[in-house]
């Protein structure tokens, strides 16, 4: 990915690559690996770059779209939720917030805004609309409520990206998702340690194989849905 970065910058350059099921580099990587992998890759049938989301479906939900675009919109929806949450946290800090906590939470807010705006720019006309959030269950004056919600959002975000990676066809998009998920994991560890020092990777999130969580879009959206007022339709997202 790093050699892509210096490429002539176009707001919709990420979309230009959609026509190709795999980037050329990755394609040749697979060719070199021999017939066996080609069989597996073909069997996966993950070539569809997908259709844009945004339009309302029969059930009134905002359609995330299909293929890779659907997954990018799914990530965009989650980043919208996180960015809205931290924007509120910084606008109305909880009682007796420490200077260190405020300092870190401002950073986290900026990271989440950067993620949200990145997806918005990258998706361009394929992007879903701005979502309405529902934070009525959160007491923004209360440290326990705010940090508890932050922890839930960060762990959920990590598991969402971990579960979505395999649904992505394009290697460059997979790398983008990878660049973001590790930052979400850093957030999760910090927030957890603010709540309870040493809980950065405890047994509630890391299993006995040393693996972090992974959730399907349906599992994630059923949890995140409590905080998103706008109805989402994830029915066209890839499932494998």
């Amino acid at each position, binding site marked *: 990915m790093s050699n892509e970065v210096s490429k002539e910058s176009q707001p919709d350059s*990420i979309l230009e690559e959609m026509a190709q099921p795999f980037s050329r580099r990755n394609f040749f*990587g697979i060719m070199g690996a021999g017939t066996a*992998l080609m069989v597996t890759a073909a*069997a996966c049938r993950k070539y569809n770059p997908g259709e844009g989301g945004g339009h309302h479906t029969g059930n009134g939900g905002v359609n995330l779209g299909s293929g890779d675009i659907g997954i990018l919109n799914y990530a965009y929806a989650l980043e919208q939720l996180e960015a809205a949450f931290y924007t509120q946290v910084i606008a109305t800090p909880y009682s007796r917030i420490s200077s260190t906590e405020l300092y870190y939470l401002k950073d986290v807010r900026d990271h989440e*805004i950067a993620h949200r705006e990145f997806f918005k720019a990258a998706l361009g006309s394929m992007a879903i609309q701005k979502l309405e959030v529902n934070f009525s269950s959160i007491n923004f004056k209360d440290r326990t409520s705010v940090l508890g919600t932050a922890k839930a959002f960060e762990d959920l975000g990590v598991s969402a990206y971990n579960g979505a990676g395999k649904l992505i066809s394009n290697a460059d998009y997979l790398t983008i998702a990878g660049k973001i998920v*590790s*930052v979400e994991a850093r957030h999760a560890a910090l927030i957890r*340690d603010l709540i309870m020092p040493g809980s950065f990777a405890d047994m509630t999130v890391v299993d006995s194989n040393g693996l*972090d969580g992974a959730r399907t879009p349906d599992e994630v959206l059923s949890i995140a849905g409590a905080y998103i007022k706008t109805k989402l339709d994830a029915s066209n997202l890839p499932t494998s």
Partner: protein
Amino acid sequence: MNLQNILSEIETTDPEVYDKFDTRRNAMKSFAKTSGKIALASIPFALGSIFQKAYGSPTGTSGIIIDTLNFALTLEYLESNFYIKAVASGIIPVGESLNALTVIRDHENEHVAFLSTAITAAGGTPVSFKATDFDFTAKGNFPGVFTDYGTLLAVAQTFEDTGVRAYKGQAPNLISNNDYLQAALQIHSVEARHAARLREMRKKANLLVPAGVDVKPWITLNQSGIASPAVQASYDGEESVVQAGVTITNIGGFPISAKAASEAFDEPLTKDQVSAIVKPFFN
């Protein structure tokens, strides 16, 4: 990915596949029989071994996947052996610090076991290392690695941040196999949690932190936060503020600084870059 698709595709490529499996039904039965005996989580790995039985070589998973998993396993051995010695060094403050490093050590041991099992199940041969294979002074760059707490934390942070970048760089090599890809991602984010924790510990201990540099749980620009040029290669490139052609600084009219823009995205390293970084730690 789905099993029916794989079988159909193999049938196209190799019409004799069912002679090898006997019949399609037996292939399914063979899978069902095997999967009945093993935990659900290891089914993908069992699938690899079924193909291996049919073809006598690791056909269900390819060389590039085995190679990638062995590369990951090599890094996990490095980390695991490091933390085993670190925890036993006697220089880590008892309490929160020692507890954290113990948790991290246990995860790295689990990653070694998990990847070794996965590679074997896929028909590959897992690499193996022993304690004497490593030189944690990195050819004298970190002479105090197990006698000086600041050096120990600095090396630990570098291993974790490098590990995060290494897994990120290898993920595309696993894109053809959903199960290995997901497992690798699930390790990747655990390494990032470790990195964040070690960075908190370094900030608190304030050892080997260059003047004027703030060590945060995330990577700012290309700053290591470590007063040693020996670790710089692990941080070069992290200063990027352009992602897929999109400039992140001040994006959408929001006041996102270059620091925040660089922190918001971790950057991958290639296998060659990672190999060059860890090479001094191997005898």
